[in-house]
């Protein structure tokens, strides 16, 4: 049981990291907390579903198209809404939250709920690892999580856009003097975050079904990971993802499934009480330039 639990804990951690990484990327770069994140996740899943089932496109095409479309809508959200309240963190929160709310509740109103609303798995097979049956989809999730984290690291360290991202994240004012267009970077950061949400949806939704409530769930999970790890820190997301992922699976196996949420909440409250900015978070408040 132990080895099996470890395997599923790893999978669970990968899922959490995938869910949180987009939200975290956006915040880390441009300081925009995108509360529409869960809605974008669900929106991309419905898009895929529509193209697959109503337009009868092949799965790969619909997944790719929906990822592209979600990425673009992230950029539009920034251009048409957030840009107008840029720099007013409180207004940004309300606006993104309002957008997410409208999207999710619209889907709920349309009644798109049920088992038929799901995406196909990539490869329908499973095999034994450490005494537990694991389907290939879950293995793929772990692999993609690894690839994405690695890819992001390479991107931010070796490409010019990525370096600009890091420049803005570290020191907006100096970056501006070097001619980096902060609005462009912020647009990109929101749209990349949206794109990552769409990628996560494409590979995680096949394990369950598409539902508006799932959108709130995704947002909760992403926020929990970011709060524990420290907003804006990729290392923090990974560590927090692993911590919550393991804590949840192990409580599930050894104590009882209904304790998992309590463990997450306790983890959040504990981290907040001891180190409010999260395990890897910088205490931005003090480090801010004066």
């Amino acid at each position: 049981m132990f080895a099996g639990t470890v395997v599923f804990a790893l999978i669970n951690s990968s899922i959490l990291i995938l869910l949180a990484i987009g939200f975290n990327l956006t915040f880390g770069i441009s300081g925009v907390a995108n509360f529409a994140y869960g809605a974008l996740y669900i929106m991309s899943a419905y898009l895929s579903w529509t193209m697959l089932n109503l337009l009868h496109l092949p799965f790969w095409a619909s997944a790719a198209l929906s990822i592209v479309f979600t990425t673009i809508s992230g950029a539009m959200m920034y251009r048409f809404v957030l840009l107008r309240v840029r720099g007013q963190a409180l207004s940004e929160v309300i606006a993104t939250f309002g957008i997410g709310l409208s999207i999710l509740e619209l889907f709920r109103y349309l009644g798109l709920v049920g088992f038929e609303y799901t995406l196909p798995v990539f490869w329908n097979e499973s095999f034994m690892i450490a005494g537990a049956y694991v389907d290939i989809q879950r293995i793929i999730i772990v692999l993609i999580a690894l690839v994405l984290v690695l890819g992001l690291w390479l991107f931010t360290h070796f490409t010019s856009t990525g370096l600009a991202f890091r420049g803005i994240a570290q020191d907006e004012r100096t970056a501006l003097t070097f001619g980096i267009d902060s609005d462009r970077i912020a647009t990109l950061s929101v749209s990349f975050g949206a794109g990552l949400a769409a990628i996560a949806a494409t590979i995680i939704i096949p394990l369950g079904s598409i539902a508006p409530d799932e959108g709130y769930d995704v947002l909760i999970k992403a926020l929990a990971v970011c709060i524990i790890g420290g907003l804006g820190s990729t290392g923090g997301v990974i560590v927090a993802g692993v911590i919550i992922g393991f804590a949840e699976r192990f409580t599930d196996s050894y104590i009882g499934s209904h304790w998992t949420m309590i463990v997450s909440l306790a983890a959040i409250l504990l981290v907040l009480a001891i180190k409010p900015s999260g395990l890897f978070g910088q205490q931005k408040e003090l480090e801010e330039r004066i």
Partner: protein
Amino acid sequence: MSLPTTLRVENISKIFGRVAAVDHLSCEVRRGELVGIIGPNGSGKTTLVNLISGFVKPTSGRILYNGQDITYTAPHKIVCMGISRTFQMVRPFYHLPAYKNMIIPLYSPRVRQLAGGRYGDRNAVALDLLEEVGFERDANVAYKPAGTLPQGYLKRLELAKAIALSPELLILDELFSGMSLAEVASVVPVIEKLRLAGKTIIMIEHRLKELFRIADRIMVLNYGQKIADGASTEVMESDEVKKAYLGSEG
């Protein structure tokens, strides 16, 4: 030389990422002194002020105020102990009239304590203090929203806010920049008066001429280190200082 030490900075460093903004710096300020700190842009002057006022916590080293270790004391407590500072970049409450901007410092526990816990007429005190730094009462400048005032007034508002806290150690971060010559000339007597009242003052300045006229002693920073410390004439003779200034500012 026998005056007691008000502020003692011991081997302090602050590293931001890879930049050592302040690098193993030590210095002392005695009671009643007016010390000027100069240095090229980015030499760590503001960071030093932030460290003393507690807004930034050092990577290593410590800071003593009247013999008491304040290195990790919260900034608001440091203010209540008698150190107040102005900000280089002013950010007043733009929509409020200038005198209303003074209310918050006047609400401070320090002011209440000094007044023996009495609740005074903050508006009247605010207007008086503003007049002192040159807000002409007849022109009702103090009643105008801070957002409509020119930079020179905002800088003086910043000074008035710091004075409102009746500090023992006053740290002014580039108070003169953004002020006209006439404004500087009107503020200098205010500073002189504070000094006569026994306040200890540290002034960060880029306007050397005005600074040299009033400072007892000048410290020069470069790359976070102290490269000279002494009377203004001898400091400017130092080769290292000349190099630092010519090297980075041309």
